[in-house]
């Protein structure tokens, strides 16, 4: 951290990583970013010449699953090197310094690299009671977040907590937990939702920013388009069963054993933007649908508040009782149908028992 001109490559070599492994990493990263083969040499060139980007990694209300995912990034080089490559100046989960030493690093980075460091936020700040539900370094986390965001170049919102709010913002949200874009409005925020996000997406995003010195193209929701432009459903290997009309009816029925589509089991794949079905997890081993369980939609806004994970139709709580659109619609249509029938009956009785004054009965001409 003392040497601002230290390049990634020098750090990598210092860690005992061979040049051959370094180039392997560049190739794999280029491939995972969906870039051409020539880009691998661009990445190598960038890592060899560019100064390390200081990264401050803050933790608010969270479960550290984003960190857990990140350190399990599939390619060994990412685990061994990337954590060191980016100048991860502050991450209270894995840093050696503690207490006043750790807080001093924050101040120093903020002053020395003003406007040049990346602020990665895992978790989110609670806003009620002045933010007293999350105290970090003796101050409410929301104050620390605002303070560090002021000098940041860009902000990465790791995971669904920082992007959307996640479980601590689920109704009734007693602490007033809010996604960070509700607190910081004057800086570019890259949302990397997922609970946790896929490791390769996290490391791929960091590599992109470091390599090209700019933020990737973001979609309408502020997510990197290269990872979040398609739904789980769009690249799901069970999609052919969906189109064929072959659905699992119950857990462990014969259709489940045949690997049919989990749509009727409440799979949220059709409404969830993430790369699970393309990149998969744990080094491409599997992803939830492949293991026989539907997608929970963990990278989507408010996924805790959409009723059961195992229902296709969302529970609508505004009606007092927990019902879905079909039950409410059918009940309303049924009541209306009965009303119509009753009205028709009264009309008929009236017509039979009461002769209308026909002289006045003009009806509706047309």
């Amino acid at each position, binding site marked *: 951290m003392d040497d601002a001109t230290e390049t990634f490559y020098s750090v990598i070599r210092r860690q005992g990583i061979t040049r051959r492994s370094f180039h392997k990493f560049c190739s794999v990263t280029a491939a995972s970013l969906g870039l051409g083969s020539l880009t691998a040499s661009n990445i190598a060139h960038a890592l060899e010449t560019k100064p390390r980007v200081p990264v401050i990694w803050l933790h608010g209300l969270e479960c550290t699953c984003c960190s857990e995912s990140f350190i399990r990034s599939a390619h060994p080089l990412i685990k061994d090197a990337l954590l060191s490559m980016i100048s991860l100046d502050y991450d209270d989960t894995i840093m050696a310094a503690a207490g006043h030493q750790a807080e001093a690093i924050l101040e120093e980075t903020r002053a020395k690299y003003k406007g040049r460091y990346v602020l990665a936020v895992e978790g989110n700040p609670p806003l009620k009671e002045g933010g007293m539900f999350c105290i970090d370094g003796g101050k409410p986390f929301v104050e620390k977040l605002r303070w560090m965001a002021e000098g940041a170049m860009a902000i990465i919102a790791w995971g669904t907590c920082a992007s959307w709010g996640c479980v601590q913002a689920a109704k009734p949200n007693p602490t007033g937990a809010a996604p960070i874009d509700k607190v910081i409005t004057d800086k570019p925020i890259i949302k990397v939702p997922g609970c946790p996000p896929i490791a390769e997406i996290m490391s791929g995003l960091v590599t992109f920013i470091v390599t090209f010195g700019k933020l990737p193209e973001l979609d309408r929701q502020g997510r990197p388009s290269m990872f979040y432009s398609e739904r789980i459903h769009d690249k799901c290997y069970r999609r052919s069963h969906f*189109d064929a009309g072959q659905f699992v009816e119950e857990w462990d029925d014969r259709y489940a054993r045949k690997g049919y589509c989990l749509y009727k089991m409440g799979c949220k794949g059709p409404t969830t933007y993430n790369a699970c079905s393309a990149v998969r997890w744990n080094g491409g081993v599997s992803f939830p649908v492949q293991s026989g369980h539907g997608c929970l939609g963990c990278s989507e806004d408010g996924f805790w508040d959409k009723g059961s994970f195992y229902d296709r139709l969302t529970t609508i709580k505004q009606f007092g009782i927990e019902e879905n659109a079909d039950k409410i619609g059918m009940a309303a249509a049924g009541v209306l149908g009965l009303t119509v029938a009753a009205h028709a009956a009264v009309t008929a009785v009236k017509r039979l028992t009461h002769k209308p004054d026909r002289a006045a009965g003009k009806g509706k001409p047309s």
Partner: protein
Amino acid sequence: MLDRGKLLTADDAAPTDRSIGGGVAHVYAPVRLWHWANAAAILVLSLTGYLIGTGTPAMKGEASGNFLFGYIRFAHFAAGYVASVGFLLRIYWALMGNAHAIQIFCVPLWRGCFWREVYQEILWYAFLTGDPDRRPGHDRLAQLAMFFMFTQTITFMVVTGFALYGQGAGTDSWQYKVFGWLFSIWPNSQDVHTLHHLGLWVIVMFALVHIYAVIREDIISRRSFFSKKIG
């Protein structure tokens, strides 16, 4: 012709002008065409939409040998296009057609006489007044139902429908570019699915009231028509 004209009066909720007389068919021809194309599309949309929401029983055989859900979704999308284009033409006709054509889009809620007629019509439907001369009143109540249950719901369904279609067609499709702003309001499209599904039931309820009112009106009016003829 007279009976069908009456059906269409209820369709369009237009207060009929007695002077139109025999010219009804001509006046209502575009609306009639739209009405039945729209009704057919909505029937297909409702049935396929319900199936898309709940899923079908599992088909036998290999996935490569079946395309049931694909066909259901295709029918839904095709009918959706028919309904949408029809609705656009209906808007065009509202602007370019006769004075009655705009009534399902524009309800004079700010006029006192409108509400007096609504009140009269409520009395009539609640069997509290025996006066069958309910011509303007009926039209007003139907006009309210048309505007709030049909016109607004269909607009909502077209917008949400195309936005959801855009998700499948991809973020670079024109559907997503034109209607994707909806996901700024509801970032989780699960909500859009739910609202789109609720919209189906609003349309079902509208159809119930609509068909009942038209049939009832037809029976009652025919009697008065006959009685007038006989008298």
